[in-house]
């Protein structure tokens, strides 16, 4: 289970970073979302992975750690708000700058401008 879980997190991080390094805002937003999913899963696992255990002390010999669950909940809420904000900002950028390139203009058009 640990291996599967770790590979999922790793894959999500890899995809997220790849997408963030793209030069258009939409892939970047998707990449940020993937990265935040990966981070949430990772935080969740920091209390060790356990199946069918209550997060209550003293009820049984082993128990799930309740704190990472609370942390993940907070992280999800914050991540959601931030994603909403960055989506709006990307749309605003598309409207203000005339295209969806993160630098405001694609490299090709900048080069032609420079040569003129």
């Amino acid at each position, binding site marked *: 289970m640990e291996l599967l879980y770790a590979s999922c997190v790793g894959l999500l991080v890899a995809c997220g970073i790849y997408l963030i390094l793209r030069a258009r805002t939409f892939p970047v937003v998707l990449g940020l979302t993937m990265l935040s999913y990966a981070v949430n899963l990772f935080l969740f696992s*920091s209390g060790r992975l356990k199946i069918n255990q209550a997060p209550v002390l003293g009820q049984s010999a082993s128990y799930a750690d309740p704190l990472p669950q609370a942390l993940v909940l907070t992280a999800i809420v914050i991540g959601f708000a931030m994603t909403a904000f*960055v989506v709006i900002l990307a749309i*605003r950028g598309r409207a203000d*700058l005339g295209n969806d390139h993160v630098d405001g203009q694609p490299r090709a058009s900048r080069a032609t401008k420079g040569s003129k």
Partner: protein
Amino acid sequence: MQHLITLPVLLPLLAGIILLLPPCGKNLVLRRWVATFMALFTLVASTLLLTTILGSGPLVYAIGEWQPPFGIVLYADPLAVALCILTSFLSLVTIVYASRGDDKAGSFFHPLAHFLLMGVNGAFLTGDLFNLFVFFEVLLIASYALLMHKKDKHTTKAALHYVILNLVGSSIFLIALGVLYGVLGTLNMADMAVKVALLQGDDIYLAKIGGLLLLIVFALKAALLPLHLWLPATYGRAMPVIAAQFAIMTKVGVYAIMRVFTMIFGEQAGELSGIASTWLWPLALVTLVVGAVGVLAAEDLRRLSANLVIVSVGTLIAMVALNNEQATAVAIYYLIHSTIACAAMFLVADMIALQRGKVQDRLVNSRGVAQPKLLGFCFVFAAIALAGLPPLSGFVAKLWLLDASYGAQVAWVFWPIYLLASLATLVALSRAGTSLFWHDHPNQDEQFEDNVYAGKRRTWALVLILAVPLMMTVFAAPLSEMSNQAAAALHNSQVAIDTVFALAKEQ
């Protein structure tokens, strides 16, 4: 009085909510007064808190009375509270300054300014690492919205970069927290400081990875090289009054570095003590150099001020990297001084830009400003403070800084770089002053209709903020005493541990 420690966080939150509700929501004049007075109350509450803890030692407050290692605590030591005072003062000045019209450029300036204040104060006062993350997010989301306050397309571009960078930073922060929690089983800073020393085997490496990931995040917030590229664009593009308010935000990153790497990974941490110093020292020096080059190369006054922020971060981090009590004391004094001086420079740049028509604050020859005496005086005052010339606080800070680093082995690298950087600052500022005030066109008598005169409020705000460097020189002795005390409290993590766990035993 035990609840006093929550006021610097709660008052701005309350203010933000009041400012959004009906009586203030529609009425701009009322909103300005409420915002000003709430910032003033926060300042008073922080000052009261400082006098309390200077007498009785650090305070701990368990939120909701949850016992310390499990619940979240607020921890007030002199450093945290002094910075709360600084932030509240800065907010007060910028709110007064913006009340002359800048707050009409977009919606919700006053509530956002208070939410920013809440986030920054919370980040200073918290004693829990996850809570630090939450307050970082509070201050960041307020800053995103403030950055977009004035609608124009260059700001949108700068904001896009700033937001995406900080979102990636937040993800790294969470990964670091996950690693540290997995290893240590706690996120309470005092508890972490105890547990870090007890680590064995491979856990040490994991904790080191977690700690250094935290360093990356804080370096991004502090604009330490090579993560500084967002700063000149962001601060240069934001409205100057907002950039002045942002002057404290890089310092939040510096504060977090000081807190985490002296309290948790400090001297008591065994194998993990001082893991950051080896990285911080070279990065600080390179930051200084790059900042100085940026100052020399700046084309307008706002960008120049933004690069001065980078220089101040480099200096501060160099002091933090020295990692001894005296250097930390200087860092605290210098932090207060540089924040105020940079913020003042942004405000002066705004006034100058408003009176020069289309040229704005670009450092080229153009018509003169409409109020040369007032603005010239303000500019010289701020420039003297920033360049570290006598008689203002920059000079005191510089002397003390050189004195503190004199004994260190690395002084022979730091001294020349630091002195050259301040020479560069001096050169750039004198050149800027010459072209802004002396090389103007002769048509002085002509009236320009687009001039915006510094009204009463703006003049008051400028006087208020420029009085601080003077006061910091006059009261240098008590202030340095306070800095020494704050540095001692920061370095002696045993005091923090004892205070926090005394609370656990009481309950």
